[in-house]
C-alpha cells in the first residue's frame, strides 16, 4: 500500500519536473540557423570537393601530372592528362577530371600530391539536375575562378 502511494507521488512529481524542463526551453532562444537566410562559414579544414590551387607566379595550376592522386584514389574518380610542353622540364596539365559522384572525401589525393597542387574547396551547395553536372573539369573551374 505504501509502495503504491509512493509510486503515485514520485511518478506524478517526475511528470511535473519534466514539464518544468520543457517550458524552460520554450522561453529560451532558438538554436537553429535560418538557412538560406543566414549562412554559416565553413571551417578552414572543411572537406568539400577538391580544386586546383592557383599558382601566384604563373596564374595557372601547379600540377606536374605525376599521377599520384590518380593512383591513390580508392574510387577511381580522378583522371589526369598532360602534355609535354617545349622548353619546360615537366609536363603541363591539359585536363583534370574529377568524378565527384564517386568521391568519398578521404583526402588521400591531397595528402599524396608532391606539388601541393590540389586542396579541398569549401563548396557545399551542391544540387543539380543530372549526374553529369558532378563530373568536374577542375582546370576549367580554375580558369573560371581566375576570371
Amino acid at each position: 500500500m505504501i509502495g503504491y502511494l509512493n509510486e503515485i507521488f514520485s511518478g506524478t512529481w517526475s511528470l511535473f519536473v519534466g514539464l518544468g524542463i520543457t517550458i524552460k526551453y520554450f522561453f529560451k532562444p532558438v538554436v537553429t540557423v535560418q538557412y538560406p537566410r543566414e549562412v554559416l562559414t565553413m571551417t578552414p579544414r572543411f572537406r568539400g570537393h577538391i580544386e586546383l590551387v592557383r599558382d601566384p607566379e604563373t596564374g595557372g595550376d601547379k600540377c606536374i601530372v605525376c599521377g599520384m592522386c590518380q593512383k591513390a584514389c580508392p574510387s577511381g574518380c580522378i583522371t589526369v592528362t598532360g602534355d609535354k610542353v617545349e622548353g619546360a622540364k615537366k609536363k603541363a596539365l591539359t585536363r583534370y577530371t574529377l568524378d565527384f559522384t564517386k568521391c568519398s572525401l578521404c583526402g588521400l589525393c591531397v595528402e599524396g600530391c608532391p606539388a601541393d597542387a590540389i586542396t579541398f574547396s569549401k563548396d557545399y551547395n551542391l544540387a543539380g539536375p543530372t549526374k553529369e553536372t558532378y563530373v568536374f573539369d577542375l582546370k576549367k573551374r580554375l580558369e573560371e575562378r581566375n576570371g
Partner: protein
Amino acid sequence: MSAFAQTQLKETFVINLGPQHPATHGVLRVKLVMDGEYIVEAEPVLGYIHRMHEKMGENRTWAQFMPNTGRMDYLHALAYNHGYVTVVERAAGIKVPERAEYIRVITAELNRISSHLLWFGAFVLDLGGFTPLLYAFDDREQILDLLESVTGSRLTYSYFRFGGVYNDIDGNFVPGALAFIKRLRERMPMYHALVTKNIILRKRLEDIGFITPEMCRKYGATGPVARGSGINFDVRKHEPYSIYPELDFDVPVYPKGDSMARYLVRMDEIEQSMRIVEQAIAKLPEGPVMAEKAPKILKPAKGDYYHAVETARGSFGLRVVSDGTNTPYRLKLRSPTFSNLSLFGEACQGMLLPDALALMGSLDLVIPEIDR
C-alpha cells in the same frame, strides 16, 4: 517458419517488421511469428545493405581502405579507423608518436559521446518522446563542429593514417573541447530529470527485455549489451591498446539485464568518456603527429594479425592476413552489432510487440555495420 512455431498449435500469423520502418535503424527486416499480441518467434533477415567491404579490402591497397572503415558504423567511425590503423601498424611495425596517440584517443572518445547521444535521442523517439532527440542533437552538434574543425568531416571520418593522424589539432580545439565538456556536464542532470526519472519511461523500460549473461556468452554479445547484464568486459580495460592504460576511468556495469540497465550503462559511459577526454587533454604532449619513417607504399610482413577495439556498440575486431604485397590477402571485420542482434530472436520470445521494439532500441543497432 521453424518447427518450434509450427508445433505451438496456436493460430499464429507471420508479420514483417519490414525493411522500411521507422523503428528499425537502417534496413532491417524481422520476420515475426505472432500469436495475437505476443511474439512467438522472431527471425532477423539481414543483407539489405551488404556492400562487400571485406571484398573491397582485398582489391584496395592498405591506405585505400581507410574510407571504408568510416562507413561501416558511421556513428562511431573514428573507433573503426583506430582499429584498422592499429592492426596494420602492428603488422608493418610502425611506431606512432605520443601526441598522435593522444589525439586519436581524444577524438575517438568525443565520437563515442556523439554516438551515445544520437542513440539516446533515437531510442526515446522510438518510445514516443520527440523532444529529447532535439536536445541531444543540440549537444551532438557541438561535437560535430569540434571534430569538423580538426578533421574536415562531420560523420564519416577518414582522419587516422598509418603512423599518426592526417593533420594536427588547431588552437581552438582544446578550449572548445573543455567548454563542451563543461556544458554537457551541466546538461546531463537535465536529461536524467526529463527522461530517466520519468515514470512513463520507467514503466516502459524497467523489467522489460531481460537478457541473461548466459545468453550474452552464447551469442557473443559485447559492449553495453553485455555490461547491462552484469558481464564486466571492456576491451579498453581488459585488452588495452593505445594509451588507455595510462588513463583512469571506470567501466559501468549493471547486473539487472533489463532495458533500463542497458540505458543506464550508456548514460554512464558518456560521463566516463568525458573523464577520459579531460585527462587526455591534460596530458597531451607536444611533438609530431606523424611517424617520420612511415613508408609511402606499405607492404607489411606476411602473417595473420588480429586487433579489437571498444566501439560504442561493442568489441570490433579486425583480422588481417597479409601476403607481403600492397593489398591485403584477407580482411575480416568482426561486427559487434551482428552478435548483439543475434540474441534478439531468443530474447523477445513471449514479449508484446511494443516491448520488443523497446528491446531492439536498447540494443543500439546500426544495420550497415551488420551487413558491412
